[in-house]
C-alpha cells in the first residue's frame, strides 16, 4: 500500500501530474476517490476511475504477493516442483539413444535448441516431434497438439505424412501385441487425419512477422489449451541478414527469449528452436559454432548440436542442467528419426504394468 506513485503502470503524463499534485503513495490515491482526483489534477472522471482501478489491481497483486498467496506469484517449494517434474511426460523422439541422453525425451516447460549444419536433420527432428507429441497417453505419449512456426519454408507436408504413417503403424503394432481396451480406443482417434489437423502451421517471412506471431502466441495457446509443443524452425534465418544494427538484434532476440520462457512455463509446453551454425575464425583455425552470438546461448535451457562425421550423423548434448554431455549417432530413415542399430530391449510384461508411460521400444524393419 505504500507503493510510490512513480512506479505504477499508468500513462506517463498522468503520472507526472499526480507527482506534481503532491501524491506520493498509492494509498493516498485510493483514499481520494475518483471525483476528488479528477478535481485536483484536472482530468475527467472516467479517466480518474480508470486510473484508480489500475492502482487497485496493482495493490491487490502486491498484497497477495507479500502474503505469500499462490496464483499471483510463482512461488512453490522444491518438493512440489519435484513431484511436478516426475509426473510430467516427455516428448519422445523415436531414437532411444537420443531420448536417453536427454533424460527421457524433450522436456516440457523448457526451451530446447537444436543447432546444426544445413542438411543434418534439424527440420526432420522437428517434424518428428510434432507428430510424437500427439501420441496418446496409453502408448507413452502426452496427447498434445503442436504449433509449427516456419521461417525457412522447409516444412514439407508429404514428409510429415510419411512420419505420421510410420508412427501410427508403430502404435498399431503395440496395440495388437497387448490387446488392451484403452489402446484400441485411443487408436481410433489417433489417425493420419487427426495428426495433421493438430499441427498448427505458421509461415513467417521475416523477423517482424516472427515477433508479431510470438506476441500473439499466448492468446493462441489459451484458446488451444492442448498444445504441448511450439516449434520455431529457423530462428536464425530472419535475423542473420539485413541487420546493420547488431544491438537492436540482440535486444529483439533477448525479448523473444523471454517471451518464449514465459510461454513455456505458463502453458507447460516444450519450446524447440532450430539454429544455424556460423564459422568463428580463431587464431589459426576456424570452428563451427551456433549462430546468433554468445548472448543467445543463454536463452535455451538445453542445447543439442547435430554434426556429421564421415557420413554418419551425430547428436551432441552440449548444454543441459540435468544430464551430462554425450554424443550419440542417429540416422534418418523414410520413417523419420531413428536409432542407428536396434536397441537391446527386453520386453517385460511387468515393466509395462508398473510404468505405463514407458512403452517398450521396438525397431521395425524398414
Amino acid at each position: 500500500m505504500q507503493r510510490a506513485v512513480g512506479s505504477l503502470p499508468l500513462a506517463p503524463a498522468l503520472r507526472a501530474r499526480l507527482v506534481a499534485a503532491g501524491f506520493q503513495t498509492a494509498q493516498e490515491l485510493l483514499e481520494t476517490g475518483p471525483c476528488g482526483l479528477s478535481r485536483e489534477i484536472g482530468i475527467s472522471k472516467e479517466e480518474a476511475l480508470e486510473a484508480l482501478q489500475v492502482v487497485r489491481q496493482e495493490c491487490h497483486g502486491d498484497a497477495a504477493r507479500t502474503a505469500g498467496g499462490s496464483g499471483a506469484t510463482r512461488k512453490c517449494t522444491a518438493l512440489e516442483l519435484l513431484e511436478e517434474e516426475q509426473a510430467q511426460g516427455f516428448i519422445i523422439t523415436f531414437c532411444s539413444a537420443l531420448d536417453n541422453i536427454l533424460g527421457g525425451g524433450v522436456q516440457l516447460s523448457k526451451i530446447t535448441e537444436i543447432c546444426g549444419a544445413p542438411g543434418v536433420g534439424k527440420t526432420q527432428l522437428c517434424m518428428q516431434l510434432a507428430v510424437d507429441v500427439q501420441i496418446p497417453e496409453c502408448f507413452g505419449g502426452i496427447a498434445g497438439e503442436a504449433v509449427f512456426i516456419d521461417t525457412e519454408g522447409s516444412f514439407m507436408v508429404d514428409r510429415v505424412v510419411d512420419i505420421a504413417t510410420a508412427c501410427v503403424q508403430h502404435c498399431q503394432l503395440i496395440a495388437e501385441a497387448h490387446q488392451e481396451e484403452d489402446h484400441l480406443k485411443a487408436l481410433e482417434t489417433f489417425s493420419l487425419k487427426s495428426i495433421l489437423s493438430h499441427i498448427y502451421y505458421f509461415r513467417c517471412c521475416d523477423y517482424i512477422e516472427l515477433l508479431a506471431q510470438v506476441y500473439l502466441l499466448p492468446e493462441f495457446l489459451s484458446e488451444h489449451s492442448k498444445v504441448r509443443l511450439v516449434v520455431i524452425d529457423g530462428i536464425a534465418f530472419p535475423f542473420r541478414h539485413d541487420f546493420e544494427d547488431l544491438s537492436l538484434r540482440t535486444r529483439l532476440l533477448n525479448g523473444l527469449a523471454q517471451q518464449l520462457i514465459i510461454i513455456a512455463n505458463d502453458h507447460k509446453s516444450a519450446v524447440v528452436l532450430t539454429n544455424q551454425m556460423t564459422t568463428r575464425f580463431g587464431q589459426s583455425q576456424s570452428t563451427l559454432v551456433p549462430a546468433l552470438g554468445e548472448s543467445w546461448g543463454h536463452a535455451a535451457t538445453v542445447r543439442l548440436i547435430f554434426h556429421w562425421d564421415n557420413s554418419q550423423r551425430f547428436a551432441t548434448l552440449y548444454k543441459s542442467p540435468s544430464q551430462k554431455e554425450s554424443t550419440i549417432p542417429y540416422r534418418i530413415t523414410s520413417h523419420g528419426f531413428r536409432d542407428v542399430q536396434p536397441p537391446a530391449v527386453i520386453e517385460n510384461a511387468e515393466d509395462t504394468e508398473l510404468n505405463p508411460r514407458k512403452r517398450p521400444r521396438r525397431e521395425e524393419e524398414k
Partner: protein
Amino acid sequence: MAAKKLRRAGLSEELCERLSRHQITTCQDFLCLSLLELVKVTGQSYYNVQKLLRKVSRACAPKMQTAYEMKLRKSVSPSSAFLSTTLHGLDKVLHGGVPCGSLTEITGPPGCGKTQFCIMMSVLTTLPVSMGGLDAAAIYVDTESAFSAERLIEIAGNRFPTYFDSDEKLLYLTSSIHLYRELTCGSVLKRIMSLEEEIISKKVKLIIIDSVASVVRKEFDVKLQGNLAERSNFLARGASVLKYLAEEFSIPV
C-alpha cells in the same frame, strides 16, 4: 507485411500522429521497441500498450493453417506439386521431380552438366501439361553467358521430335523463355526483386538462376575483412526473395 503502415493496422488517428512525431510509422518500427519505450512514446498505460501491441501484431502475423489443410490443398492438384525432370531415376529419388514452391540447388564441378540441366528444365516447362510440363513461360537469369539458344532448339528438337515438328512450335518455345543477362551481384539482386511483376504478367512457372556462385565469387573476395558479411547479406537477401517468390506463386526455382 513489415512495412505496413500503422494507420492501416487499426490504431486511432491521434495515436498515429503522436507516433509519427517519434518517427514510428510502420509496424516494424512499433514492434522493434520494448514495452517501456512504447509506454513513453504512446503516453498510455502499461496494460493499454500491451493491448495495442497485440493489435499491431495481429495486423502483421501470418495466417494459421493446419498441416491437414496443406495436405488437402496439395492433393487437390497432385500434378502441380512437382515438375518432373523426365529422368526416371532422378524423379524417383526426388519423390516426383523438382518440387514446386521451394528452392532447389544444383551444384557440381565445372562441365558436369548443370547448365544443360537448366536448359532442359526450361524446355520442359513450356511443354503442355499432358506431356508432363507446366505449359508456361520460364525466366532464365544467366550470369555466365552460358545460355545458347541454338542448343535450346537442338535439345527440344531431339528430345521431343514429335512435338516440336513445326517451326511454329519452336518459335513459341523460344519466345516463352525469357533470358536476362546479369553480370554483377547488384544487378542480379535488382533483377530478382523485379521478378514479381514479370511472373504475373508473363505467366512464368519456372525461375532459373545460373549461377549464383560465379557472380558472388567474382565480386567478393573472402580473404578481405568486410566482404564476408556483405556477401552473406547479399546471398541471404536474394535467398529470402526467391523463397518468397517460390512459395507465393508455387513455382520451382
